[in-house]
């Protein structure tokens, strides 16, 4: 249905013509059945994934990790160590896949880039005054340009939640568009909604569509800096949004849950959500990522358990 899709895409360009059309569109999205959504997310979490399927899921999850360090105390040494770990997550077993990317603050991009040089691992940088996003647009764009100049392959921006919650959707839209054009074609843009601050599932659905309309390559749940981060329910909701967006426009957008995913079991539940909601096309680290740090160690311990039959322990993975 290429004609239908392009017609729909055309219809969607009208949506962003003015503040009122955008508002009408976002508020016209169907409301979210919160109980149904959480029930569906919970029921998909009960699948039993064992043996070879589990081994496949663990390797896939490792390859989807954006290994993250976003602390005030980050040092070049820590970032180099993280880079080395991203390239060879388990030095004792070279069959372990590399992670998708390392995710750092803009001033650490150059260090990270050097640390992962010659590998498939990308460097993602948070920008736009992460995590609060409370800075003038010029400052945010300068932040993005600095990260790009240092060699970032991916930019993780935060939206202006204040403007979003005040109903000023056009402002949020324009900011994303501006950041997207600053990224150009050389960096993929991930848009962080901070779902824990959006209050309702309806808002998460609206934010997802807003981000995708503005040209996000990825929509990402959260910064990892607030109480509620990625949950199965809000990730399921965003997966439905990218599925519907592709059905309407033909454009595929990635999803990145971040924060609070610490165990292999959780990660595998998310993979089930991806497969059952968006579909197999998203089961690839080009379209789905985990923003995490401690998750990788648990994945590695589970991988060792599958390989040796013995439960592994934290003494056998790096401390980071």
């Amino acid at each position, binding site marked *: 249905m290429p004609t239908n899709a392009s017609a729909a895409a055309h219809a969607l360009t009208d949506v962003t013509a003015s503040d009122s059309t955008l508002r009408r569109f976002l508020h016209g999205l169907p409301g979210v059945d919160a109980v149904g959504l959480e029930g569906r997310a919970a029921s998909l979490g009960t699948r039993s994934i064992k043996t070879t399927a589990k081994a496949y899921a663990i390797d896939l999850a490792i390859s989807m990790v954006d290994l993250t360090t976003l602390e005030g105390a980050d040092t070049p040494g820590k970032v180099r160590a993280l880079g080395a770990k991203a390239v060879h997550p388990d030095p004792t077993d070279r069959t372990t896949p590399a992670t998708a990317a390392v995710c750092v603050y803009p001033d650490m991009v150059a260090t990270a880039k050097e640390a992962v040089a010659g590998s498939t691992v990308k460097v993602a940088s948070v920008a736009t005054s992460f995590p609060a996003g409370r800075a003038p647009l010029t400052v945010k764009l300068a932040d993005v340009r600095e990260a790009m100049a240092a060699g970032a392959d991916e930019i993780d921006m935060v939206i202006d939640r204040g403007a979003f919650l005040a109903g000023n959707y056009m402002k949020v839209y324009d900011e994303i568009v501006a950041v997207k054009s600053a990224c150009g074609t050389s960096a993929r843009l991930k848009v962080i909604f901070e779902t824990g601050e959006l209050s309702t599932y309806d808002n998460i659905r609206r934010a997802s569509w807003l981000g995708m309309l503005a040209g996000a390559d990825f929509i990402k749940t959260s910064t990892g800096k607030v109480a509620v981060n990625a949950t199965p329910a809000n990730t399921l909701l965003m997966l439905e949004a990218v599925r519907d967006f592709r059905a309407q426009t033909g454009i595929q957008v990635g999803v990145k849950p971040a924060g609070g995913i610490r165990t292999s079991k959780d990660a595998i539940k998310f993979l089930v959500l991806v497969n059952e909601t968006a579909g197999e096309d998203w089961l690839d680290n080009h379209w789905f990522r985990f923003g995490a740090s401690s998750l990788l160690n648990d994945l590695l311990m589970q991988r*060792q358990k599958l390989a040796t*039959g*013995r*439960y*592994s*322990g*934290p*003494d*056998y993975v790096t401390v980071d």
Partner: protein
Amino acid sequence: MSDRLSVFKTYKLYVGGKFPRSESGRVYEVTDSKGSWLANAPQSSRKDARDAVVAARKAFGGWAGATAYNRGQILYRVAEMLEGRKAQFVREVADAEGLSKSKAAEQVDATIDRWVWYAGWTDKIAQVVGGGNPVAGPFFNLSSPEPTGVVAVLAPQDSSFLGLVSVVAPVIATGNTAVVVASEKSPLPALSLGEVLATSDLPGGVVNVLSGRTAEIATPLAAHQDVNAIDLAGADDVLAKELEIAAADNLKRVLRPQPVDEVDWSADPGIDRMTGFLETKTVWHPTGSLGASGSSY
């Protein structure tokens, strides 16, 4: 008087300060010494063992870091709680071991005394097995004992309560955390002990009690890379050999005092069960050149 319906107790595991059923949902029948049914006990799986190790590891930092004095107070508190529930333990021990009421009461009294005895040792063991070492050089040299870590304890199969406490108390007195596999045949006193520990200020996860088939639970524990030591008191010779081989993989400490059979649990225990799960840390501190008096400090 109307007939009351009997209120049966659901025996559950004690893991991480909580009372879960077995992850597998299985139970097995526990009988008294004459073979009549007493209760259903949870039949733990290797995943329950794994969860217990996670809980024990999580609790280790806090428990090992608590002052020895504080650990002593908490262990004494356990003895106080045991005293208050004596009647229940007398009944359970009598059923499990086929003892008369008075014999069982003697066992329980000895058990509580054993617990108090180990409570007293918490802040004394360091003086006995640690101290300053005379060395041939200008160094101040000190050794102090530190807990080994997470210890898997296979409780004795025959002595369901005195034997159990005699192997659990020395492990935790020195700051280790324990995953205890209760006697397969008579696990009920061990499961009830979990209820006592939960109400004794003992942080959750310091002691975790599993019931079930000893061989099934002990095998993954012995191979577990995050378990630092294993006490084979409750393993028969064949099982013990297998477990020792599995434990060698990550160089676990293995405690299996000889002779294995017919241990008299009522005898004075000595400090061997405490020192078995201690690591000695030695610190060398330079003192500068020795003065004419032979000492510079």
